[in-house]
């Protein structure tokens, strides 16, 4: 399993009144993976991960699921290069209900989001991993999401992984 931080949509969205964009966000990332060594230098490490974003409001939430299909190449000693394909699924959910809000010159009733929607996107990623021990590693992955389309967004994750066999 692994613990870390996942930053999605880096540099896309406004974060303050000055119009500055958000490059980093704190979103704890929990992952589970399995490691297949099919040679002394190559491994396949499929991974399922969950990123828990800060709750935007009491009425709606956002979460990111990730499925990674990485192949790792042992470059030199404890240094590994990883790369492959991934799926990022964004989940936006709301509790429903309605709220009176300002609407120009008066007040109107607006609906709060109800239910959940899932938005999948395919991604390509490249990463680096350093293994302190056979079972303990730290890694950094950079994702391009979605593939073959615009606008592309940059996502990256930094995590510490523990391998148990």
């Amino acid at each position, binding site marked *: 399993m692994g613990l870390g931080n996942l930053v999605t949509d880096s540099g896309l969205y406004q974060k303050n009144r000055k119009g500055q964009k958000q490059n980093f966000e704190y979103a704890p990332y929990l992952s589970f993976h399995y490691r297949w060594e099919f040679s002394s230098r190559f491994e396949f490490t499929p991974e399922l991960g969950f990123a828990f974003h800060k709750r935007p409001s009491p009425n709606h939430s956002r979460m990111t699921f990730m499925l990674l299909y990485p192949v790792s190449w042992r470059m030199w000693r404890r240094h590994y290069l990883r790369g492959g394909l991934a799926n990022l699924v*964004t989940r936006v959910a709301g509790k429903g209900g309605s709220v009176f*809000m300002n609407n120009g*010159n008066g007040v109107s009733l607006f609906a709060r*989001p109800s239910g959940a929607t899932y*938005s999948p996107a395919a991604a390509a990623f490249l990463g680096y991993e350093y293994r302190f021990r056979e079972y303990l590693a730290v890694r950094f992955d950079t994702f*391009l999401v979605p593939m073959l*389309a615009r606008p592309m967004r940059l996502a990256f994750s930094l995590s510490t992984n523990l391998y148990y066999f």
Partner: protein
Amino acid sequence: MIKILTLLSFAASVTSSAFTLIITNPARYATNNVEIRIANNDCDNLGLSAQDVKDMVAISVGQYWNTVPSSKIRFHSGSFVDVAEDASLTDMKNSIEDNQIIIGCSKNSDLFDSANILAVGTMTVSAPARGIVAINNTAGSRFSSLSESNQRATLAHEMGHAIGIGHSTHEYALMYFVLSESIKQESLARDDSDAITFLYPNKSKVPFLLGSCGQIRDIADKDLWFNYIFVLSVLALFLMWFFVAGSFNEMQKPQRMKL
């Protein structure tokens, strides 16, 4: 006392809400690529021609709503359409086809009974979806006093209503209910992105686990081809490493002598 309690409950409800929808289940556009038609009448009280509005819309969608990777919907500025200069929202709605949005100026005094109303955006309540954005072109309209960037932000805000999004309480969200000169609205906020993702998420054409490659916008788009070649190059390089280094690794293995 009742008034105070009502005000308090209103304040509490406002501060605890983020993005909202215009109604619980708004009509959705049936296409991923929505055409925005431009009313072919000049906005004489604002000093804008129909072409100026069209150019402003093109920049606005590129700056705001077309920037969300987790949403399938994209907008493009389309052709002109004839409407009266005092057209009502119904007149404007009837001048376009389904799954289109119309943006244009109007001098309709019923619609704009105050110069402080900058613009109005809405959409049909039930499918098929049609969106309407009317800019206040009555005499003394405050729209003309806005900076160009705030005019674009206003259009994008009303377009948000035209796709089903309501107001937000996040003060730096595009859909915040007040346009403030002190807030520089350069892009969407995360709250706006959540709203459009909630209404128009990417859809997978293949089983869920394979996901979606997003929106392939235009085969002639040079950037698209650049992305395509870039991703393929990275994968090709990785495969080369895989095979070349793998073969090298096999050669390095100590060979047992056969006796």
